[in-house]
């Protein structure tokens, strides 16, 4: 009896796994076909009809996306299209996709740091040839680079850029920090110290801790086959110079500088009396912080830092939100048309107006809303001084965070110690 039950269960499991594989093959064939199609065709759907698509959008964009999808359906009156929009956080979308591609959305928004994972899981159908050139030319280079990976030696655009940023910027309280102070980290820290408030940078988290490395000229330059990090040909002395400059400042302003969760910046500014006067905060908190500070809200690109006497622009990590097409979509052509529509100039402008999302589209970025919003202009300016958050090894975050914590936690920050810590972090990243 026991054996019989075990056998039955095993058969059931194998059957379900096989069923999943079957679906995969079909879809792969389909998406293989799309890649080669370049001929002009009056029907962007290539004959697909009775289309039903599932779209994932983040919580706060669901109602807008629903409305946009209705506009999309109205554009093709001779097709039968139904679109369902479900809420799904962009950070978690990749995990949910890979969890079960068959049950996942056809068109989904995600953040670009998950693109490697999605590509390895064969979850993404690349941007089809029909739209490729247009997508590349209408979006900023930075945004396109966040969706581009080298697959089998060929550069491929795997998803449609949706926003121009998903990173961090400098936020400050104008009561205590002037626009001039905000130009350099030295100025900010001095102003905060004078006001008796904290300046908050989450330097012991890899996402923010990479700033000293990038400022010193290091760049994540791709991943090896086995997922090991590749760096550019950086000058170690320059990286150490940068680390030293950061460590020196953090020690000089020991009572002012604080490393903590960026949500504490907004929280500290909302306190009465406020405890935080400036910080490097995520763009996802911008709306709330701007509301809290009102007219005193100041936003700018990351400041400069004095390295060996020269003011050097701090380079940060920056992502973008992308819209991907599920490689196993039952309507691969329609999904591409919809993804293209959802990232078009017109829709990005709507999103800018309704949700304050910075567009990746070059024309949409010229909109007055961007110019009049301190946060959006700051984010736009910052994207020039950013390393795209793609091709980053899983092993990158923790060692970089640890290295960041050494910059302010340890009393000894001599060059020799920093070099030792840097070597240690590098060895851990490269898993040596």
């Amino acid at each position, binding site marked *: 009896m026991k054996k019989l039950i075990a056998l039955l269960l095993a058969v059931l*499991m194998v059957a379900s796994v096989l*069923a999943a594989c079957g679906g995969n093959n079909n879809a792969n064939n389909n998406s293989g076909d799309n890649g080669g199609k370049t001929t002009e065709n009056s029907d962007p759907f290539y004959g697909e009809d009775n289309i039903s698509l599932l779209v994932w959008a983040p919580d706060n964009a669901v109602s807008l996306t629903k409305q946009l999808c209705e506009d999309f359906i109205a554009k093709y009156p001779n097709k039968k299209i139904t679109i369902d929009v479900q809420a799904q956080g962009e*950070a978690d979308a990749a995990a949910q996709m890979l969890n079960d591609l068959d049950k996942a959305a056809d068109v989904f928004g995600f953040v670009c740091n998950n693109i490697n994972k999605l590509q390895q899981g064969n979850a993404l159908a690349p941007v089809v040839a029909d739209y490729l050139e247009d997508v590349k030319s209408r979006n900023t280079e930075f945004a396109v680079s966040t969706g581009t990976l080298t697959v089998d030696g060929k550069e491929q655009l795997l998803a449609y850029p949706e926003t121009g940023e998903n990173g961090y910027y400098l936020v400050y309280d104008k009561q205590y920090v002037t626009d001039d102070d905000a130009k350099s980290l030295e100025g900010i820290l001095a102003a905060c110290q004078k006001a008796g408030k904290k300046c908050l940078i989450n330097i012991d988290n890899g996402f923010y801790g990479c700033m000293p490395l990038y400022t010193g000229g290091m760049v994540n330059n791709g991943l090896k086959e086995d997922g090991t990090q590749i760096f550019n040909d950086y000058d170690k002395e320059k990286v150490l110079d940068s680390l030293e400059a950061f460590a020196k400042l953090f020690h000089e302003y020991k009572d002012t500088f604080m490393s903590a969760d960026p*949500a*504490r910046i907004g*929280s500290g500014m909302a306190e009465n009396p406020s405890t935080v006067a400036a910080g490097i905060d995520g763009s996802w908190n911008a709306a709330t912080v701007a509301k809290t500070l009102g007219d005193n809200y100041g936003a700018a690109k990351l400041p400069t830092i004095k390295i060996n006497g020269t003011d050097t622009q701090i380079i940060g990590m920056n992502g973008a939100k992308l819209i991907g097409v599920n490689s196993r979509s039952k309507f691969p052509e329609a999904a591409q048309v919809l993804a293209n529509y959802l990232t078009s100039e017109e829709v990005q402008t709507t999103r800018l107006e309704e949700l304050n999302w910075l567009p990746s589209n070059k024309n949409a970025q010229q909109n007055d809303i961007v110019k009049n919003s301190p946060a959006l202009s700051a984010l736009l300016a910052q994207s020039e001084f950013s390393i795209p958050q793609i091709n980053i090894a899983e092993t990158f975050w923790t060692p970089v965070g640890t290295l960041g914590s050494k910059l302010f936690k340890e009393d000894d920050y001599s060059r020799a110690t920093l070099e030792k810590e840097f070597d240690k972090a590098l060895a851990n990243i490269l898993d040596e």
Partner: protein
Amino acid sequence: MIKSYKVRRFVTNAFVYILLGGLGLIWISPLVYLVLHSFRDEGLAYVSYLIPQKLSFQNYIDLFTVTKESSMNFPRWFMNTFIVAIFSCIISTLAVMMVSYAFSRLRFKARKPLINIGMILGMFPGFMTMIAIYYLLKAMGLLEMPLVALIICYSAGAGLGYQISKGFFDTIPRALDEAATIDGATRNQIFWKIILPMSKPILVYTVLTSFIGPWTDFILAKIIVGKDIPNYTVAIGLQMLIDADHVLNNFKKFLAGSVVVAVPITTLFLIMQRYYVEGVTAGGVKG
């Protein structure tokens, strides 16, 4: 060496009470913080002081207000969890009681092997099978109805938790069964009319554990419900409130939600508390 017994007792007691008081304080402080700050009116996510400056019910009102813009629907999540917990509770309690009764009172050939299999299966940690459970549910098409799937998952294997109640049933004299049999009662009647009414403590214990399990479970619920936000349970919903994108605005709601979640369990516990202590210790008397 202190001679006087009184003084010695005082010193020992003082020491013990201070130690216990300190430990108690450490243990209860997060709960006090949680309740206190769930009423905090000012500030966003975090504040740098312990006592809120202004108290209000706003966080609770916000928590139960459903807006069109947001898919966060705490009342719905609460109801989902409640439905799942109630059904799992009823089904598992019945299953546990019946299995225990069969193993305790009936004598059949496979009794010993079944008891052993049950013991061994119970030793595997539940999350080992989660991936398999997901694919099985998917193959059966149950993932479209995540709440039903959850009820099945929580109650299907419940009968395996028979050990404690079987131990309790073993302590009820068989003479009662025999007397009832002589009066013409069937096995079924004995179970419902004799054994169950006499097993209130263990029944209460089973009800409590099988209600709290689904109510607080996170991992299995997260895997099965996945991204289906309207069908979230409170555990996953609360976690969604404090992910990086939402924490600044929703942290206070999260605190309020954590307090609200404790209400049904506390109520159930208070109602059944009288029997609970007896129930926990009763099964262990005789194995």
